[in-house]
């Protein structure tokens, strides 16, 4: 009979426990709010700063000389699309195949070594990548180019694509792989027809993450794509990119260029966000169609 009394009437301990619980709850809420503050702050600050220079023609016009009203960043939009596109062409296929190898390889020692190497590459500062590509492409060719910019972005994207795709491929139940192999499908067939479709949503998300990361790189562009005030779609010539344009405009002494830097930054953020939403929509529609999710 002493037991229930002790359990229910332990007033002091109960109060202490409840207090501890409340304090911990408060701490986690505060930490969450603090974590969100920079996000909201950055976005709202950029929006406020960008508004004066922002208009629809800002997206469609080419840069104007200092003091000339109007003007836009059409060249940088196109240049970013070209360089990021080249980057995906490099990092997408190579990254996917490497991820398949890592996820399916039975030689775990080799896989671990490659995984470590990938992590090292992911940790290399992007400006170092820029210098590297500068010396292997720009110097031998003797000129800056969109191509060299794309190659840098490809190098930056590669480890992100490999690691996210591998993680997702590992999540595909091994029973699906066994089911396919047991019918007499070869490994490569199983990978293409069963594993990739089952993992495609996560893989697309991984590629989007890589794009978001690469699209914001300014430092390596100084050595490679270089920047170009005119419209250019020449892969072999220099092009402007969004982050590089932000950099050039932001450090200029002119009031109207600095406003344009903020507007360009906002466009960059919007483009990345838009791509992410688009990818979510596509994969969502796909999974509804095939019933990959749910059920």
């Amino acid at each position: 009979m002493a037991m229930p009394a002790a359990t229910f009437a332990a007033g002091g301990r109960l109060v202490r426990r409840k207090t501890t619980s409340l304090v911990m709850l408060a701490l986690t809420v505060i930490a969450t709010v603090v974590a969100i503050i920079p996000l909201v702050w950055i976005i709202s600050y950029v929006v406020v700063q960008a508004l004066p220079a922002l208009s629809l023609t800002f997206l469609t016009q080419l840069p104007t000389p200092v003091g000339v009203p109007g003007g836009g960043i059409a060249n940088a939009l196109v240049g970013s699309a070209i360089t990021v596109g080249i980057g995906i062409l490099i990092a997408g296929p190579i990254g996917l195949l490497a991820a398949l190898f890592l996820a399916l390889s039975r030689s775990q020692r080799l896989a671990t070594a490659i995984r470590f190497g990938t992590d090292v590459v992911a940790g290399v500062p992007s400006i170092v990548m820029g210098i590297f590509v500068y010396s292997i492409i720009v110097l031998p060719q003797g000129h800056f180019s969109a191509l060299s910019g794309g190659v840098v972005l490809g190098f930056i994207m590669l480890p992100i694509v490999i690691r996210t795709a591998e993680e997702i491929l590992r999540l595909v139940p091994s029973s699906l792989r066994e089911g396919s192999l047991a019918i007499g499908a070869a490994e490569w067939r199983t990978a293409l027809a069963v594993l990739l479709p089952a993992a495609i949503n996560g893989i697309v998300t991984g590629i989007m993450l890589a794009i978001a990361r690469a699209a914001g790189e300014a430092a390596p562009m100084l050595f490679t794509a270089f920047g170009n005030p005119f419209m250019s779609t020449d892969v072999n010539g220099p092009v402007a990119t969004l982050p590089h344009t932000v950099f050039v405009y932001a450090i200029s002494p002119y009031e109207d260029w600095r406003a344009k830097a903020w507007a360009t930054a906002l466009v960059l953020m919007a483009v990345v966000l838009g791509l992410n939403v688009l990818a979510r929509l596509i994969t969502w529609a796909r999974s509804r169609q095939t019933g990959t999710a749910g059920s």
Partner: protein
Amino acid sequence: MIETAVARPPVPPAPPSTPPVEIPTTTKIAVRSLTVRYGEFTAIRDVTLDVESNRITAIIGPSGSGKSTLLRAMNRMNDLVPGVRMSGEILMDGVDMLDRAVDVVDVRRRVGMVFQRPNPFPKSIYDNVAYGPRLYGVRGRTLNEVVERSLRSAALWDEVKDKLRRSGMALSGGQQQRLCIARAIAVQPEVILMDEPASALDPVATLRIEELIRELRRSFTIVIVTHNMQQASRVSDRTAFFTMGGDRAGYLVEMDETVKIFTNPAERLTEDYVSGRFG
């Protein structure tokens, strides 16, 4: 209904390709002194048994006695396990399937498999069944016919004929397992291995699967691993009883007609197990 449905010949004539080992023609798969190791661990030791054509062979025994290992050796699914080593022979129609020269992909086409948990692909019902035939270049109207015939053989056609484009994942558990059976049948294998095919299903679905297995015996040779002794006695023609020795390696205790195993087994171990005194 399927070409491989051949009545067993009454007198065994020696086929020209018969190797030195003596095998009656009613034997579809002959396991000879098979030992399977995973690294240092011996999963099954020195197993010798015959799987007879167009009959249902049940493999029973306690957990860890190597039932699934034996089953997965018969279509080389064990190859996927790192560090696996196999010695001995598994002869199908006289050809050793463990031979290096033998193509695993070919083995698996001839020896199909149904798993413990239904594992339909995240594709439509039609594409699930068509997956195998497509690998071998079947297209168009022929493919439609193969899909329909396979679904009929798996007793699923009437339930899904109006929703072939729906996802296979949307079916019930029992339907999913029959879909997986249809998928295995679609490439017209000679043998179907079943690894506790009903253990994840409710009693009604289990009964339907068991009826289906009895039906499939006419066209295929079937080997089924089961934990459920009632199921083994209801479904199978022959039963092999496995247990493990002191070193945890599984071995074959005895194999005989199912009636004999469950009523009058030769070994004391078997009797204890089927009567529930052990395991």
